[in-house]
């Protein structure tokens, strides 16, 4: 078998999802966002939802998500994605609407919007990327920053007496009657990637079935903000983040 055989279509084992654009992403090498984008692009295309999906991108690292996945997008103000998605979903009930939010968007400035959209049981998917730091603005503390974790605004490590406790927003969302599916996943291993994709698919299915709000948290790395190599960041996440943010379903109705 030579190289010509390998590139034959019948031998193809992997390709870029059709909805992922041919552009350079602005994400740092090693960042989890690229993988999560790919999974979303795959799930939307595989479920045949390209012409009825509207994404709501946040303020944060994923602010330019609309440049990468080939569906309609609305770029929201910081924290307001769930409110924006609420209106789109209610006004276009045939559409499937998802928000893509970071830890600042979901659990700091947009806590009220996130909790109330989920509490109303809006038929939307909330994708929550939790890397325990503010990546876009240069590595400041997030509500989900771990105790002791160093960031630009906690240079000596997060202290409970000064900065309070890490916020488990996903656990809060799970206790609300409006959520039907709340899960915490990661994308640091091939197995984890497959599980996250299954979770996203389930969330989109729930939105189609009008079952209420689905929340898919992806515990993620920010190797730039954490000042680590991508590989080291993966290890650090598994070692430290999963203890506070354990993977698995928090709710699956």
């Amino acid at each position, binding site marked *: 078998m030579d190289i010509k055989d390998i590139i034959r279509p019948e031998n193809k084992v992997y390709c870029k999802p059709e909805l992922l654009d041919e552009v350079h992403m602005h994400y740092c090498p090693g960042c989890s966002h690229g993988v999560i984008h790919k999974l979303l692009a795959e799930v939307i295309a595989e479920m045949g939802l390209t012409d009825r999906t509207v994404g709501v991108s946040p303020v944060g690292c994923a602010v*330019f998500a609309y440049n990468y996945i080939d*569906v309609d997008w609305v*770029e*929201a103000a910081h924290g307001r994605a769930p*409110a924006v998605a*609420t209106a789109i979903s209610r006004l276009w009930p045939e559409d499937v609407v998802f928000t893509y939010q970071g830890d600042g968007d979901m659990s700091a400035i947009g806590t009220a*919007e996130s909790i*109330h959209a989920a509490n109303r049981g809006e038929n939307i998917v909330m994708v929550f990327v939790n890397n325990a730091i503010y990546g876009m603005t240069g590595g400041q503390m997030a509500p989900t920053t771990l105790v002791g974790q160093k960031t630009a605004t906690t240079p000596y490590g997060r202290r409970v007496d000064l900065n309070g406790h890490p916020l488990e927003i996903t656990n809060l969302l799970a206790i609300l009657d409006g959520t039907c599916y709340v899960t915490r996943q990661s994308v640091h291993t091939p197995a984890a990637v497959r599980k996250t994709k299954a979770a996203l698919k389930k969330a989109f299915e729930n939105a189609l079935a009008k079952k209420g709000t689905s929340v898919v948290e992806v515990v993620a790395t920010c190797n730039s903000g954490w000042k680590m190599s991508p590989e080291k960041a993966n290890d650090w996440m598994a070692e430290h983040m999963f203890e506070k943010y354990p993977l698995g379903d928090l709710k699956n109705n």
Partner: protein
Amino acid sequence: MKEEVRLMKGNEAIAHAAIRYGCDGYFGYPITPQSEVLETLEELMPWETTGMVVLQAESEVAAINMVYGGASTGKAVMTSSSSPGVSLKQEGISYIAAASLPALILNVMRGGPGLGTIQPSQADYFQATKGGGHGDYHLIVLAPSTVQEMVDFVGLGFDLAFKYCNPAMILADGIVGQMMEKVVLPEQRPRRTDEEIRKQCPWAANGRKDGRKRNVITSLELESSRMEVINHKLQERYREIERNETRWEEIDVEGADYLIVAFGSIARICAKAKEMAAEKGIKVGIVRPITLWPFPTEAIHRAAQGKKGILCVELNAGQMIEDVRLAVHDAIPVEHFGRLGGIIPSPEEVVVALEEKIVK
């Protein structure tokens, strides 16, 4: 629903007018003195008839961002609030303006600053006409003086918002919100179908039907040279709106010695004052700006020709007077009279102010 004559409050009229216009969605948060808008909508249950969505949001911030979301999809959506709530909405309003989206916002002004009072005021003139939120933008600002205009401006506001892809604001005061008057409600218009919306708003983000290119609604552009172009385009649109959409009313300007400039319900108090002044031999004309932005600068400039002075009557400490002064280039005296904190002046007070400040 056919055309109908009713007696109702301005706030109730807004709700009826929104449904009859074929509005697709209302998102709001209760605040006095305009809570009747949401209350009336919830009572009328338009989702059962026209299919209009009505939602009580968790905050004014959420409500305006729901409007942003709805407007992004080409739907005719609106919100309403009163002064402190409208301050909260400014972030979203700036985004809606920057993203060139049609939407309608009602502010039933109450006295401020801060939590202030729940009584009528016009102290949000600056906020409404000079921007309000961050950045270089304008809202189309309509100032109703009657309950009928509350109704009419829902339709006009939406029409202008869609014509120019620009948010419009109805800047009302607690008087016109809370008073009841005879009002003619227009015949029910059908809401646009989704197909009609896709045709009218090819830019809207509502799903890539028929394999069209994706639509992205955003106000973000980090490349300064491109952001400047976006700004210039906004400015070109504002100049076009200024040319086409400036509206005002003149009452007996011809032959008058003095002018009163007033907007909203206060202009009606001034109309009564004008009659009372006439009995004393003081000839006064009135210019009532209907669009506060674009401001009827040239109309006031023309009306001021040959007049001895202008009294600007506003329920604030002197805001519109700045635009009136610019309009007349200080050629004649321009003075301000206003009551603050929710006090409504009587026609007699206006006559006294006219005599003391202008006629002398």
